[in-house]
């Protein structure tokens, strides 16, 4: 492949906490090919979430460049970045993914409110996404009527619904028991293999390695190992 989907080049990120500067990432480089399923691992506080946020366009680097699909997203304005995210990335977090007052269907529909789709088209697409994660029959349920695993599936459906090429997941199984976690990992694997989604997943779960195509280790803001499977 001539150009990777994700090209993070010489990226540094420093947070300022009051007067103190907290350097988190230093001159980090990573390239991710389209269709990869990357498990990003490392000790707590090593900067995994920070890197994920930079690649997902939630935050901007202090130095270096982040190029995704040929576009320098570190140079976009906040508004442009928001638009870019809505078209190109799906997000799944550990907690607080869903709006508790909305049904599963309405939660999945949220990203489509930003598109030009009609009401019925939005509903159709949201139902299709729920079907992909196996929850078509729970469309009318609210988050508190769902199990933790089901909630994560709804979140995944929402990440899929606008058909982005990239999914970023921050510890999506961190709060789940073993069996449920495996189901989620299986689902992500299906999305990777059969739907061609490029997935970048932060995880502490050693078994995640079985599902991912690569594992990347981050420690103290440096990539210490990149292990092809």
């Amino acid at each position, binding site marked *: 492949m001539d150009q990777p989907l994700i090209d993070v080049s010489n990226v540094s990120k420093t947070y300022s906490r009051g007067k103190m500067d907290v350097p988190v990432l230093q001159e980090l480089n990573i390239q991710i090919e389209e269709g990869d399923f990357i498990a990003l691992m490392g000790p707590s506080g090593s900067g995994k979430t920070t890197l994920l*946020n930079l690649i997902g366009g939630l935050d901007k680097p202090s130095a270096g460049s982040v190029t995704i699909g040929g576009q320098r997203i570190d140079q976009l304005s906040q508004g442009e970045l928001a638009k870019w995210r809505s078209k190109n990335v799906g*997000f799944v977090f550990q907690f*607080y993914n869903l709006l*508790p*007052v909305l049904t599963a269907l309405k939660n999945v529909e949220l*990203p489509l409110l930003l598109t030009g789709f009609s009401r019925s088209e939005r509903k159709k697409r949201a139902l299709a996404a729920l079907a992909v994660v196996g929850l078509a029959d729970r469309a009318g349920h609210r988050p508190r009527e769902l199990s933790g695993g089901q909630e994560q599936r709804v979140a995944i459906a929402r990440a899929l619904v606008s058909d982005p090429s990239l999914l970023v997941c921050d510890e999506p199984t961190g709060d789940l028991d073993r069996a449920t976690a495996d189901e989620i990992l299986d689902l992500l694997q299906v999305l990777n293999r059969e739907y061609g989604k490029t997935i970048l997943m932060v995880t502490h779960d050693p078994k995640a390695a079985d599902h991912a195509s690569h594992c990347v280790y981050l420690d103290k803001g440096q990539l210490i190992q990149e292990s092809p499977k």
Partner: protein
Amino acid sequence: MRYFGLIWAALYRKPVRSFLTLASLFVAFLLFGLLQSVSVAFSEGPDLDGVDRLIIAPKYSIIDQLPLNYSRQILQVKGVEVLSHQTWFGGTFRNGRSFFPRFPIQPETFMDIYPELVLPQDQRQAFINTRTGVIIGRSLAQKFNLKVGDKLPLTATIWENKDKGPWEFDLVGIYDIPGEEVSDAQLFINYNYFDEYRLRGTGLVGKFIVRIDNPDRAAEVALEIDTLFANSSNETKTSTEKAYNQMFANQVGDIGFIMTSILSAVFFTILLLTGNTMAQGIRERIPELAILKTLGFSNVSVLLIVMSESILMVLIGCVPGLFAASAILPGLAVSVSFLAGVEMSAFVFAQGMVLAVLLGLIVGTPPALRALRLNIVDALGEHQ
């Protein structure tokens, strides 16, 4: 609006809290509708103030009455040229959908004292000759689409008639008040018929009006009249029309001031209460708003969503409150006869709506700004 479902759903987040907030908004706007309607109704009316006219009113209260037979003695006072009188009728018209003053008067003398009322000669004569005749101002005739010859029924609120049924009048004239910026929104009834047919209070009038030959002697004449009835059971207070209007306006002003004070207190409380509810609501929803932004909702859309929630919340309390006020007013008027016919106008309704939107904007601004400024990474980081 695409986000309506999202905005609407926010009300269900904490149903009990939403209900309590809505209930207090409901009460606040109910009060607003009632008090404001009364206030507006009493600040209307003509303000003719001829320097040669004196008003002889009951000394202690504008709702007391005076005996009609005072007129003989008053007419004997030197300087008094013509005497007429008027009485507050109250009543409701067409199920009480509109408030305007109605007065039984003595047609001939009243029209003599008030040359400002202009109506064609034949109508003037018809008013004098027709026992059941009434005349109204042009603005009312247009508003209610009335023409000379129409029947005009009024429901009694103060003065029941001997049949304890509706009063039925014949519209015999429509008057103008040209060249003056005073309201012509009044109805005048032939006193003789009114007095004969009413069940109680025969021989009483609300106040006398006299024209004097020399305005410079107004104070003297007034004193002489009041002296006539000093120590009687119906003492009088005579003043120039201007002074009388001023006094009346002051009383109305006092009513207005009291109502404004009450309403201010109510709305200040509501402001704090609703503001607190909104602030609390937004704190709980920081992660949700961060998720919306993550999904690509712009800062401005998130601001608008929060702002719309606030305005929607206030409106949901406001509209039923105003409707309740307009439903209650007629009933209130029955038990407090002085309020007879006071009703909620479209103007008061509109005022209420504007107030609601303003309240929503004020209450919604702090949380909306907080939502606008919310940084995704910080918000998710704090909770992750």
